[in-house]
C-alpha cells in the first residue's frame, strides 16, 4: 500500500534560533523525496521532530491521514517511522546483528535470546545488501563506511511506513552508494515514504523524484526533480546562481619547489607510500573506502606510528611523533570523521575554532588574550559563514555542515605549510562548497601544499593538480589533472598489486 | 587571660548559659553514645544549659576541627576521648590558651613519657587488656589448656586504631606473664578493622589454617570483634570447646542471654560511669573551683553469664 506523510505548520525554536519556521508539505509513498537546503536550513531538525527526538514548538504531522505525535523515538519506530541520523548513532560494543535488531532480539523458550536466529536474520539482510560483514563481529571493528551501512540495515530491517536518510552517503563510497540506491529502489516499489537528505546534486539527479527545498528554516518549494534544472534548485536554496563551480576556479598555475616528500612510508595499514607535494599544489588521493588514504595522512602527521620510510618537509626530515609536533611544523589535517575526530564535544564553537592558535595570542604573562581570541573567532565565523547565534553555543548543537565548517576554520587559521583535507566537504552544502573550493585555491596560490582525500570524484578531479590512486594500503596509480577522468580513477582503484602502472 | 575567663563564668554561672562539650573519637559507637548520654545527664543535672555531643569520626582532622569549634563557641568546659594520644599536646595547649578546662575520658591526654597532661577519668586501655589477659590465663589453667597442645590463643588486633593497640598488648603480655609455659607457636594473631564480619573473616581464616587446634581462646580489641570470633567458632563447629572474652560488655550481654555462647565473659567497664564521672569532675571545677583529681579510675569488672545482671544493672537489658 502507499503511505502518505504530511507536515502541517511545523515550527521549532532553539535558544537563539528558529530552526523550523511554519513548515508544511506532503510526502507521497512510492517516491523519493529529497531535502535540499543550506547547512543549518533545518533538514535534520525536521527529521528529529518527525521521529519524536525533538518536540515541535508548534504544528503537527499526519501519517496516512491521522494526526500522530511521538514523545520519543520508540513510539515513532513503533508507528513505522525510521530516521537514519546524520551523525552515526551506532553501538560500538555490541555485534552487528545486535545493532540491527536492537530492542527486537529474537527470543526462544524461557525468553532467552536466540543467537542463532539473530545472526541468521542479520546475515539475511547483510546478504541482501551484498556486503562482506560478519553478523557476530563487534561494530567498533568495522570501517566507518560499514558502520554507516549497519545503521541503514537497522532501519531497513524494521516494519516501515516512512524511512528517512540524513546524508547517508557522507561516509560511503560509490560501491556502497550503489547498494544503498538499490535498497531505496526496493522500498520505493513497496510504497514507503522515502526522505533523503543530501548535498550531492549528483545523487539527487540519480534518485530524487521530488525535491523539497528549505532556506533558513523555511520551506521554499516542492518541485519534481525532472522538471527543474539544477541551477534553478540551487538558486532556490542558496538565493543566487553558482554556475560551473570548477570552471570558475581561479586555480594556481605555476607550482613551487618540492614542499613535502614522503619516501617508502609504511605503517600498520599502509605500504611503500612515496610521493612529492609541491608548494601551491593540490594533490588528490583517490580510492575506495578502505584503501588506506586516511592512514597515509595519519602516519604523516604522527597520529599513527610510522614503521618505515621518511617524511621530508622543505628537504628537512619532518618525522612527527604526534599531531602536535606536525602542527608545530605547519602540517595540519582536517580529519575524516567529524564526530569522533573533529569536534571537541562539550566545548563551544569558539573554543573549537581557537584551539589551534591559542599559542599565538598569549600575553606576556602567558595568559590568553581573550579579546583577540574573540575577534579571531568572530572573523572566521563570518568568513566561513558558520551558522550559529553566537560563538558560545555548544558545537554539538550546530548543524552537521556548520560543525564541519568550524573544524575547517580551526585549521585554516593556523596558516599551515601543508594542509591535509580528509573528506573536507562532507556534509557541506553546494553554496558553501563553492566558497570552500575558492578558498582552497586561494590558499594554494599562497604557496600552501594541499593533500586532498575525497570520495567525491568530481571534487577530486575538479580540484587536484595531480591524483594518486590507492588500494589495499598501496599506491596503484597516478594521473595528472589533464587526463583525470572518473572511469580512469576507478580503473586504477580496482587495479591489483603488480599491475601497477603510471600514466 | 584564662583565669579571668573562668572567673566570669563561674561567677555568673547561674545567670549565664553554661555549655559543656563532649568530643568523642567515635561518636557512632555504642560505647560513646552511652558515655555521651550519661555525660549530658550529669551536666544538665548540675545546671549546664547545654551539652554538645561531637563525633570525631576516628579522624584526627575532624577532632581538631571540633576543638577549634568549641573554642570558637566559648564553651565552658570540655570532656574528650581523643582518636589518638599524640593529639594530647595540641588539645591541651589550645584549650588552655582559650581558658577552657578539659577532662580526658577513656583514653588519657598524655605526653610521650605517659605523663598525664590533664585530669583523666576512665579505664586505661592497657589495663583493660590486662584484665582480659588475666581472666583468660586463669581460664586456660582451670581447663588445662596451658598444657594441652590442642589449645591455642587467638588475638584479634586492631592495629590501625592506635588507641586500641594497648588493649591487645595488655591482653597478650598479661597472658604470657601468667602462663610463661604456653608455647608461642600456639599463639596466633589476625587484624581486623573493628567490624564484626571482618573479625569473623580473620578468625575463620586462622581456625581453618590451624585445624590442629581444637580449643580456642580468643581475645580481641573491641567487642564487635569478639562477637565475630564467636560466630566464626560456631561455623567451624569449635564453639563448644572454645572461649571468647568480650571487651565492654555491651554486646556480650546478649550473648549471655542465649543458652550457650562461646562468649564466656567480658570486661565490663560502664561508659555511663566514665561519662557521668568525667562531667562531675569538670563541673565541680567550673562551679565550685574544686581541684580536679588527675586520675579517677573507673573500675573494670569481669562479667559472666551468671553475674552480668547484677553487675551491669540496667545496662544488661
Amino acid at each position, binding site marked *: 500500500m502507499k503511505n502518505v506523510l504530511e507536515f502541517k505548520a511545523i515550527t521549532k525554536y532553539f535558544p537563539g534560533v528558529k530552526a523550523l519556521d511554519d513548515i508544511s508539505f506532503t510526502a507521497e509513498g512510492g517516491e523519493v523525496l529529497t531535502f535540499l537546503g543550506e547547512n543549518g536550513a533545518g533538514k535534520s531538525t525536521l527529521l528529529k521532530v518527525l521521529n519524536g527526538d525533538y518536540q515541535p514548538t508548534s504544528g503537527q504531522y499526519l501519517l496516512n491521514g491521522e494526526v500522530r505525535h511521538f514523545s520519543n523515538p520508540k513510539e515513532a519506530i513503533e508507528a513505522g517511522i525510521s530516521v537514519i541520523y546524520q551523525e552515526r548513532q551506532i553501538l560500538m560494543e555490541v555485534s552487528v546483528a545486535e545493532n540491527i535488531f536492537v530492542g527486537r532480539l529474537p527470543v526462544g523458550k524461557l525468553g532467552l535470546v536466540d543467537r542463532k536466529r539473530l545472526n541468521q536474520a542479520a546475515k539475511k539482510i547483510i546478504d541482501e545488501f551484498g556486503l562482506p560483514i560478519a553478523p557476530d563481529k563487534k561494530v567498533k571493528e568495522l570501517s566507518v563506511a560499514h558502520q554507516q551501512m549497519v545503521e541503514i540495515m537497522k532501519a531497513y530491517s524494521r516494519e516501515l511506513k516512512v524511512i528517512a536518510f540524513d546524508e547517508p552517503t557522507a561516509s560511503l563510497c560509490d560501491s556502497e552508494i550503489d547498494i544503498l540506491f538499490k535498497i531505496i529502489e526496493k522500498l520505493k516499489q513497496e510504497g514507503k515514504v522515502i526522505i533523503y537528505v543530501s548535498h550531492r546534486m549528483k545523487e539527487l539527479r540519480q534518485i530524487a523524484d521530488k525535491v523539497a527545498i528549505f532556506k533558513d528554516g523555511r520551506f521554499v518549494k516542492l518541485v519534481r526533480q525532472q522538471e527543474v534544472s539544477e541551477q534553478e534548485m540551487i538558486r532556490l536554496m542558496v538565493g543566487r546562481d553558482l554556475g560551473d563551480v570548477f570552471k570558475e576556479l581561479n586555480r594556481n598555475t605555476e607550482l613551487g619547489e618540492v614542499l613535502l616528500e614522503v619516501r617508502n612510508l609504511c605503517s600498520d595499514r599502509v605500504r611503500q607510500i612515496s610521493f612529492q607535494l609541491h608548494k601551491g599544489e593540490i594533490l588528490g588521493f583517490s580510492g575506495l573506502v578502505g584503501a588506506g588514504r586516511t592512514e597515509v595522512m595519519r602516519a604523516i602527521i604522527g597520529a599513527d606510528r610510522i614503521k618505515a620510510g621518511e617524511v621530508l618537509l622543505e628537504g628537512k626530515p619532518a618525522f612527527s611523533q604526534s599531531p602536535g609536533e606536525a602542527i608545530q611544523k605547519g602540517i595540519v589535517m582536517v580529519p575524516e570523521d567529524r564526530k569522533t575526530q573533529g569536534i571537541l564535544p562539550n566545548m563551544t564553537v569558539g573554543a573549537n575554532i581557537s584551539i589551534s592558535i591559542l599559542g599565538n595570542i598569549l600575553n606576556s604573562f602567558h595568559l590568553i588574550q581573550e579579546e583577540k581570541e574573540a575577534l579571531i573567532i568572530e572573523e572566521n565565523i563570518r568568513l566561513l559563514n558558520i551558522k550559529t547565534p553566537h560563538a558560545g553555543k555548544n558545537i554539538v548543537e550546530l548543524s552537521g555542515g556548520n560543525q564541519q565548517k568550524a573544524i575547517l576554520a580551526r585549521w585554516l587559521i593556523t596558516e599551515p605549510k601543508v594542509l591535509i583535507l580528509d573528506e573536507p566537504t562532507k556534509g557541506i552544502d553546494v553554496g558553501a562548497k563553492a566558497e570552500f573550493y575558492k578558498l582552497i585555491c586561494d590558499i594554494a596560490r599562497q604557496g600552501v601544499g594541499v593533500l586532498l582525500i575525497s570520495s567525491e570524484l568530481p571534487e577530486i578531479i575538479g580540484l587536484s593538480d595531480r591524483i594518486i590512486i590507492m588500494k589495499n594500503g598501496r599506491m596503484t596509480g597516478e594521473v595528472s589533472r589533464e587526463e583525470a577522468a572518473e572511469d580512469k580513477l576507478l580503473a586504477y582503484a580496482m587495479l591489483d598489486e603488480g599491475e601497477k602502472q603510471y600514466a | 587571660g584564662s583565669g579571668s575567663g573562668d572567673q566570669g563564668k563561674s561567677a555568673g554561672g547561674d545567670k549565664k548559659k553554661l555549655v559543656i562539650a563532649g568530643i568523642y573519637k567515635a561518636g557512632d559507637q555504642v560505647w560513646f553514645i552511652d558515655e555521651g548520654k550519661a555525660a549530658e545527664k550529669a551536666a544538665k543535672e548540675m545546671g549546664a544549659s547545654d551539652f554538645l555531643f561531637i563525633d570525631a569520626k576516628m579522624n584526627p582532622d575532624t577532632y581538631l576541627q571540633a576543638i577549634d569549634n568549641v573554642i570558637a563557641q566559648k564553651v565552658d568546659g570540655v570532656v574528650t576521648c581523643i582518636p589518638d594520644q599524640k593529639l594530647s599536646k595540641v588539645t591541651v595547649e589550645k584549650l588552655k590558651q582559650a581558658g577552657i578546662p578539659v577532662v580526658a575520658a577513656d583514653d588519657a591526654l598524655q605526653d610521650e613519657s605517659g605523663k598525664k597532661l590533664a585530669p583523666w577519668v576512665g579505664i586505661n586501655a592497657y589495663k583493660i587488656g590486662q584484665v582480659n589477659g588475666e581472666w583468660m590465663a586463669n581460664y586456660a589453667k582451670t581447663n588445662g589448656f596451658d598444657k594441652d597442645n590442642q589449645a591455642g590463643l587467638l588475638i584479634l588486633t586492631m592495629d590501625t586504631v592506635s588507641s586500641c593497640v594497648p588493649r591487645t598488648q595488655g591482653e597478650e603480655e598479661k597472658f604470657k606473664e601468667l602462663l610463661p609455659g604456653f608455647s608461642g607457636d600456639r599463639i596466633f594473631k589476625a587484624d581486623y578493622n573493628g567490624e564484626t564480619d571482618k573479625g569473623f573473616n580473620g578468625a575463620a581464616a*586462622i581456625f581453618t589454617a590451624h585445624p590442629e587446634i581444637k580449643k580456642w581462646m580468643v581475645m580481641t580489641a573491641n567487642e564487635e570483634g569478639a562477637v565475630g570470633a564467636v560466630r566464626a567458632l560456631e561455623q567451624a563447629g569449635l564453639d563448644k570447646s572454645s572461649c571468647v572474652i568480650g571487651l565492654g560488655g555491651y*554486646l556480650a550481654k546478649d550473648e549471655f542471654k542465649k543458652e550457650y555462647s562461646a562468649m564466656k565473659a567480658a570486661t565490663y567497664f560502664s561508659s555511663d560511669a566514665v561519662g557521668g564521672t568525667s562531667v562531675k569532675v569538670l563541673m565541680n571545677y567550673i562551679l565550685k573551683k574544686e581541684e580536679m583529681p588527675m586520675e579517677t579510675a573507673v573500675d573494670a569488672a569481669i562479667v559472666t553469664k551468671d553475674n552480668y545482671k547484677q553487675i551491669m544493672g540496667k545496662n544488661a537489658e
Partner: protein
Amino acid sequence: MLKWDHITQKIETDKLGLIVALVALVIIFSFFNSNYLSSANLINILVAASLPGLVAIGETYLIIAGLCDLSTGSVAAFASVLAAVLMQKGLSFFPMLLVVIGAGILVGYINAWAVNKIKLESFIATLATMSIFRGFAYIICDGKPVYIMDSTFIDFGKERILGLPIPVIILLLAFLLFGIILAKTRFGRSVYVVGGSKNAARLAGLDPERITNVLFMLTGALSALGGIILGARMSSGQPAASVGLEFDAITAAVLGGTAFTGGVGTIFGTVLGVLILQGFNTGLIMLNVPVFWQFVARGMLLFIALAFDFLRKKNREKKLLEQSMALLEQKEPPVKTTPA
C-alpha cells in the same frame, strides 16, 4: 544453552588470564599453608564472598550500563539493622525478608530517580544516598547493634544444604540466574546497549530511564539481601557494618573485566573477580602478612591483575592486525581481513 565451543572460545579470549591468576593464587597460598585448599577454608571464602558477591552482581550490571552505586555498603548495613529491628518488633522471618528487600528496592528507586530526573551522575547521587542511609542505619537502632534471637533468622545464616551454607547457595544461584539474564535475555542485552550510548539506545527505541530504574532497584534488592545474610551470620544488625563494601564489589567487577567505560563485562568475569579478591584476602590472613602490608598487597593485586589483562589484550590485537595485514598482502579485500 550455550554451545561448548562457544564457551571455551569466550573463556579463551577474555577470561583465561583471570583463571590463570586465580589458579596461581591458590597454588601459591596452598604452598605456604596446606589448609588453604581445605573444604573448610573454601567454604570460609565463599561465605565471606556472599555479601560482596551479591552486591558485585548489581555493580556489574550498573557499570556495564555506564553507572555505579556507592550506597550499597550503607544499604547493606541499613538492611541488617532494619531486619533485626523488625524481628524484635515481632515480625516473623519471611514477612521481614519482603519488607527489608522492599526497602532496598526503594533506595534503588531513589538513586535512579536522582539519576533520571535530576540528571545527577550516578557516582554523585549514590555518594549522597551512601551518607543518608548510613545515617538511617544508625537512627533506627540509635546506634546500638541489635541482637537477633529468632532461630529461623540465625539458621538462615549458617544452616547447610548439601554441605553448603545457605548464604553460599544463595550466592551461587544468584550468579547463575543473573549471569543468564545478562548474557541471554533481551533485558540483559539492552544493559550493554545503554552502556554503549544512552542516546543511541534511546534512538533505537529502548528506554534508558526504565533500564536505569530496574538496575538500581536490582542492586538495592541485592544489597538488602546481602545485609540480611550479614545480619543472620553475625546474629545482630550492625549500623557500622560493611563500610567500603561498594568498593570491594566494584573492584571485583573490574577485576572480572567489566569496564568503567560501559558496554563491557560479564557475570562470569565478576565471579572470578570475587573469588580472586576474597581468596586473596583470606590468603593474606593465613600467611599472616602484616596488616599494613595487606593494604599494599590488595592495591598491588588490582594493579598487577589489570596490567596483565591489558598486556594480553594488546597482544591479541597485535596478532589480529598482523593477520589482517598478511591477508592484505595476499590481495584480499580489506574487510574480510579482520577475522571474526
